[in-house]
């Protein structure tokens, strides 16, 4: 029996993958959204290359629909770990006519991110993007390799993935192809929170309980205080002040809140332990169809 704890195992495995990525690719980037998974991933990257600086930039695909707290945090965090930041703007893709903004009050830029991501990858010639995706998040993700191959159109072919044996990762590719790499594949939501607690990692305030104006739409609690989400006239009287926190932080239009009074990491860990819904259960983008995530991933989504 090995004497190490499961968090030590997961940390070491992630560091191993991060180092493999730096070693096997010419120009990797770490996808940084300001969400807890990408924060943990960047935290681990700092450890992996210490005392050197990160050998790759953080890449933020910015939908423009951000919670201000998340942006503030992003800029602070990048400074704190001594990284450099590259930003890909969805607004730019819209302005250049590369994508069409969705219409209606449930419009989301979540899907548009894929085009911006692929454009940014091409513009900067990134050949590997590190993502904070975890296999426990969603059933299509549960199938993905650590080193996930993408063809020259950025597409994932789930029926034809390369075998991935032992700790040997095959990052060989043809010109124009790239890889998505997922160092946190084997982490669960609980592992992430227990690690954040163990390491004392500061988080955006959105993750902790606070008062916010909320609109309930299709069973989801959505932000109604920043004005990012357009409200229908009939919805306006239904806006309520609630005590909530966010379980995931991403594009504001599809990130649902949960009612919660958890205001410390310990309280959040206890809450996650008792939760009866997955964290993605609060995300509108997954609810669009049974295989919504697989379909988006095939096209090159995160």
């Amino acid at each position, binding site marked *: *029996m090995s004497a190490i704890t499961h968090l030590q195992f997961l940390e*070491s495995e992630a560091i191993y993958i991060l180092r493999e990525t730096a070693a096997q690719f010419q120009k990797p980037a770490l996808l940084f959204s300001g969400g807890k998974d990408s924060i943990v991933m960047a935290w681990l990257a700092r450890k992996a290359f210490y005392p050197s600086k990160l050998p790759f930039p953080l890449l933020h695909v910015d939908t423009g629909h951000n919670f201000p707290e998340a942006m503030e945090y992003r800029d602070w965090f990048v400074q704190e770990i001594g990284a450099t930041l590259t930003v890909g703007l969805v607004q730019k893709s819209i302005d250049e006519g590369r994508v069409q903004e969705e219409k209606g009050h449930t419009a989301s830029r979540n899907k548009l991110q894929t085009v911006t991501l692929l454009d940014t990858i091409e513009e900067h010639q990134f050949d590997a993007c590190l993502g904070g995706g975890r296999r426990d998040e969603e059933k299509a993700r549960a*199938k993905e390799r650590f080193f996930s191959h993408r063809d020259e159109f950025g597409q994932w072919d789930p029926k034809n993935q390369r075998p*991935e*044996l032992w700790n040997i990762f095959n990052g060989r*590719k043809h010109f124009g192809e790239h890889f998505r790499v997922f160092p946190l*594949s084997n982490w669960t939501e609980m592992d992430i929170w227990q690690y954040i607690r163990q390491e004392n990692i500061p988080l955006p305030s959105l993750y902790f309980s606070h008062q916010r104006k909320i609109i309930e739409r299709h069973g989801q609690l959505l932000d109604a205080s920043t004005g990012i989400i357009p409200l229908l006239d009939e919805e306006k009287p239904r806006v309520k002040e609630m005590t909530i926190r966010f379980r995931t932080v991403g594009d504001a239009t599809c990130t649902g809140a949960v009612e919660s009074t958890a205001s410390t990491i310990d309280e959040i860990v206890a809450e996650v332990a008792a939760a009866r819904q*997955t964290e993605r259960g609060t995300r509108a983008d997954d609810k669009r169809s049974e295989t919504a995530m*697989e379909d988006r991933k095939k096209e090159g989504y995160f």
Partner: protein
Amino acid sequence: MDVLVNPTESSLLRFTTAGSVDDGKSTLIGRLLYDSKSIFEDQLLAVEESSKRRGDAHVNLALLTDGLRAEREQGITIDVAYRYFATPKRKFIIADTPGHIQYTRNMVTGASTADLAIILIDARLGVIEQTMRHTYLASLLRIGHIVLAVNKMDLVNFDQAVYDKIVADYMAFAKGLENLPHVTPIPMSALNGDNVVDKSENTPWYTGPSLLQHLETAQVHTETAVDEARFPVQWVIRPISDREDAKLGNLHDYRGFAGRVASGTFKVGDDVLVYPSEMKTKITGIHTFEGPQPEAIPQLSYSITVADEIDTSRGGMIVKAGEPAQTAQEFDAMICWFADKKTLKPRSRFHLRHTTNDVRAVVTDVLYKVNISTLEKSAASKEFSLNDIGCIRLRCASPIFFDAYAKNRTTGSFVLVDEQTNNTVAAGMILKPLVDAGDEDAEVAI
């Protein structure tokens, strides 16, 4: 829902499912997750809705792991799904693998990192070729523990005679294996949950543990601190900076070898050999972000500094001075061949990936292929096609440093990568180096 295990004490068990198509592997994993209350309400609701839409008679728990569109359409598993759950006693990482022979490469992917394999058998069908193939693969991969899940007992009236015969047939086959794993047979119904989490009233004649009880307590061997010490180098950390670091001082001369300990323990002050040059030096520092460490232990990642200016980089390896690895340019290995459109034969060329090393390699001979049902070795055909397993001789462009797979899973394993497609086309396990015919001393030394 995730059980709150004590993060400072919990151990991890990695296991995989195996067996033929429709034996009930995915259903079993679904049942295990469901009965251990590891399923979220929204996941269950989604599975209930999908089952209804498909017209299934009952909630199809296999849909919890069969997440791809093509899998749901065909009702089979195509690629390995990873699932996670915990009990107060342990954390588990599950690899649910496909039974279909066409996707054996995905079964091997899931099994290569497992400490234990659950091999399912349909009680109506008994031991069939796929049972034997997967058992053989598990023993080849040196998975030390097998749970023989005799499933669908509900369809044979929970008849003890049926169960006993299957277990006897299986053991008769398993006896012929070169390294027989530890086998724990359990009668089950994955569909109804008999002996999965709780002991079943339908099998009063069965006195052993339920599957979950067994998984919670199974003692598996992983790389231990007493094995020979091996540290493959992934990356060299050179800050190239005059910064003062709070823990390390001035960084101007810092040169750390970054990697993960494959086995054994290294301490500061240890005499070590550094490959490929095989130069001797001493460990001067073992570092993590947390600061200097007295020792480096298996599975954890470090940056190691040594006393002398030694030329090594990615692909190199640090070992303890008294515990050298084997070095050879040509060696024999067992392989499983994964490519469906290409074959392997003498003179085939590949990129060989071994630990952090990448060298060109050519097949110099095909020694034999293994007949899965009889375990007989045959040299009749020199060509490997999809799913063939056997022994080949490989010569590399430059020497590699390794251990036999039987001794060390990390330094004894490799993959072959196709030079045209870049696909991973074979999994390899090193048996022994080829000894120079004229040099008898060398044979003794190895």
